[in-house]
């Protein structure tokens, strides 16, 4: 049985980011890194979120030196506690679907219900924090953008986990207002392929109906 994955229909996606916000929301509540596991991309050819394809022969799983990435329940799962933040998976991923995200000391505090305890003038300091802090040691001209680092921040790899902790399945699918996202599993693939074969055959037979070789 092949792995399942979530994919969007660019004809329906309006680039509204509800999937990203929903993703952060449920993962934060589950105690996982507060970062979207899918990225809305706007291009001239169209707009849709991009996320892990849950490869059956996953390069990220191959390169992980600490076995933080494993195959579980027809998906590629990443254990954030085991991850050492080496970023090799992000480099190996052919889709750009893995992001190392640095958890800042106050990042968890900004999320969820604990927001109450944060000083309400926080937006001021946050905005200043968004810029690289002056003086903090950080990588100058990293060899690759993924390899940038700032002292004091611990990065772990973040990727789509199909919301395995939710009985109703991926939150992005649930909250998408235009229902542009869906899960593709073996059954869905089989149904789609069967439909395509039927269409192909119908066209072929119709075209060859009258020809002597066609029968």
């Amino acid at each position, binding site marked *: 049985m092949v792995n399942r994955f979530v994919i969007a229909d660019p*004809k*329906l996606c*309006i*680039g*509204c*980011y*509800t999937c*990203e*916000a*929903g993703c*952060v*929301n449920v993962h934060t509540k589950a105690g996982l890194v*507060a970062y*979207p596991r899918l990225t809305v991309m*706007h291009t*001239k050819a*169209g*707009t849709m979120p991009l996320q892990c394809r849950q490869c059956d022969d996953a390069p990220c799983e191959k390169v992980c030196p600490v076995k933080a990435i494993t195959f579980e329940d027809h998906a590629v799962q990443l254990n954030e506690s085991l991850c050492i933040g080496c970023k090799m998976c992000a480099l190996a991923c052919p889709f750009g679907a893995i992001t190392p995200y640095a958890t800042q000391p106050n990042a968890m505090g*900004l*999320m*969820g219900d604990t*927001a*109450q305890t*944060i*000083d*309400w*003038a926080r*937006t*001021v300091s*946050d*905005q*200043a924090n*968004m*810029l*690289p802090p*002056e003086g903090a040691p950080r990588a100058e001209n990293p060899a690759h953008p993924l390899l940038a680092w700032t002292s004091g921040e611990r990065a772990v790899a973040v990727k789509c986990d199909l919301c395995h902790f939710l009985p109703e399945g991926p939150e992005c699918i649930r*909250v998408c*207002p*235009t*229902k542009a996202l869906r899960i593709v599993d073996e059954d869905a693939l089989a149904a789609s392929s069967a439909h395509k074969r039927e269409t192909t055959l119908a066209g072929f037979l119709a075209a060859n109906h009258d020809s002597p070789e066609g029968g």
Partner: protein
Amino acid sequence: MRLSVKDNQITEINPDPAHPVSEGELCLKGLYGFKHVADPGRLRTPLMNREGGFAPVSWDVALDSIVEQVNTIKRESGPDAIAVFSSARATNEENYIAQKFARAVIGTNNVDHCARLCHAPTTVGLTMTMGNGAMTNTIPELGEFSDVIFIIGSNTAECHPLIAKHVLKAKARGAKLIVADPRMTEMANKADLWLRVPLGNDIPLINGMLHVIIKEGLHKADFIREHATGFDDVVRAVEDYSPESVSVMTGIPAADIIAAGRAYATAKAAATLFAMGVTQFTCGTGNVVSVANLAIITGQIGRPGAGVCPLRGQGNVQGACDLGALPNVFPGGKHVTSEVDRARFEQAWGVALSPKPGLQITEIPDAILAGKVRALIIDGENPMMSDPNTMHFARALEKLDLLVVADLFLTETARRANIVLPAAGWGEKEGTFTNTERRVQRLRPAVVPPYEAKADWWIFKTLADRMGYRGMAYDSPKDIWDELRRVVPADYAGMTYSRLEQMPGLCWPCPSEDHPGTPILFVGGKFATPSGKAALKPVLFHPISVPEAQRKVFDEPIIGHIAERPDADYPFMLTTGRRVYHYHTGTMTRRAPLLEQIGPEELIELNPLDAKTLEVCEGDYIKVSTRRGGVVAKAWITERVPPRVVFSTFHFWEASSNEETNAENVDPLSGIPEYKISAAKVAKSSAAEARANVAAKAAYYLNSVERKVILQMQET
């Protein structure tokens, strides 16, 4: 929407599957934009700005002080020295009481709200042509009936995601989508035909479409003869706008203009959707009238899925306009200059009313600087960030004798006030909202307002009581609503609270309790103008100036041009708008952690060709400045904007585009400023300059009072 509440805090929002518009879906602002309600930064007590900063005071002290100062200013300089800004985020009941307070208690028509800055040309232009400045149809009709949807100047996917959903539904059914927009918005990207109209060139585009329609005989001659006036003038006006000449002027291929005209005119039901990309120009009214001309001439009005749909922004901007929070009209669109209308309200409110139209929001700063307006009462608006040319507006505020601001937070505007009042907000109040399709819906409180915050209606009522006015003996919003139903029976008499509670709202007009409401306006070509006929108007445009010879052919043509064109010093055009993840000046959405994480900072859209010339890479900081001000923010290099155009928003005080926008040139017919075009220059910047910029803006907007005040309030 349904709110889940625990310990007087909203924990979750869920859509209502039975609602005809949302159909069980919400966008991210609807789902996650509620954390501001329980934010610890909510104002706790009234504050008075005394020497050395704000001091918490009791409601009695604050209100008595306002009454005393307003009375003094009124005695010394007359009632017109006082102005009130109402709010499109306040309920219908509160907008009604705000304008009644200005008119009946203070005695001035100086009451306006932010519709001046968004859909004022819609109100003026559609009233002029069709008699009514509102959406003619309902949103679900788009998905169900429209077979051509023409979106012009609306970033529907970002600004009205749930309406975009109905457009996609139509598309899935086979409807054709035509989008006219200078930016490659999501809807433009999904369109069957995208007309990349240059900024400000809507009039020539629509005149070009009308030229094709009339030349090819696709107009509805019978409908025009029976239900419209002024057709001959429009025929003459569009004569010069052949698709070829419009193509020369705008760069849109002539074949596309022809295809758009044909598709719109021959559709079984065509709907036009428009928003600020039509209105926020010095020829905003001309643009709206063009849209109306197109619909009337092709008979695309008054049927399911066929109509003119201005998409309104704030939760209750339609209601705020309907309820007379405008300087020239009473509730129900009755004119302050009309003796008959005035007499009716004088009788209802028991006082003599001023016959002089009041000042528009965009006229207020200059009136303050000229010493004509001395006191300003702002209920739930943040004009320091939402009004054009921030520095000019701030200079005006400084000259006021009295600035009162009622709000949830110590906003950029409230920090400059003499007296700040803590207001109750969405989720805490009783009342009604009117959505963009004229649907009046009940709003119920889910939580109790924090600390000493009070509903806006209570604030106005209590001020009125203390000023000696006896006509506001309301105990609840229901009392106000019932008065409104008596005063404007043609629109609201049939809308009792109990009826509104039993269904997902009713569309006005709804004159009696057995009336089902009016989802579609102008059925059978019956327009709401005094004559009952639609009034077509000739609209002319030239980027610099329409030649005199062309103008004088008509009695009263509407003329359009571009106020501030690019030149050698400012070679770019800056255009402004919104992003899906924030709401206006960010006072609420920037306090929602999820939204702030998705949209933490300003991104200025810059075309790849310009990025190459300026040697700017993705994520580099750029500085955009106009003759009025400048901001530094990150560049988003994208073909969404055409070359020589940059796009930015007013969500972030760190980089608010309204420091750059033009307040000087407004549409002469509606008073709206030209938010959509400013001549600008763009230069590569640096992280160091960006840091310095944030520090400078923090000093300018925040005055470092915020932290001090909250500490003071916590101590009391």
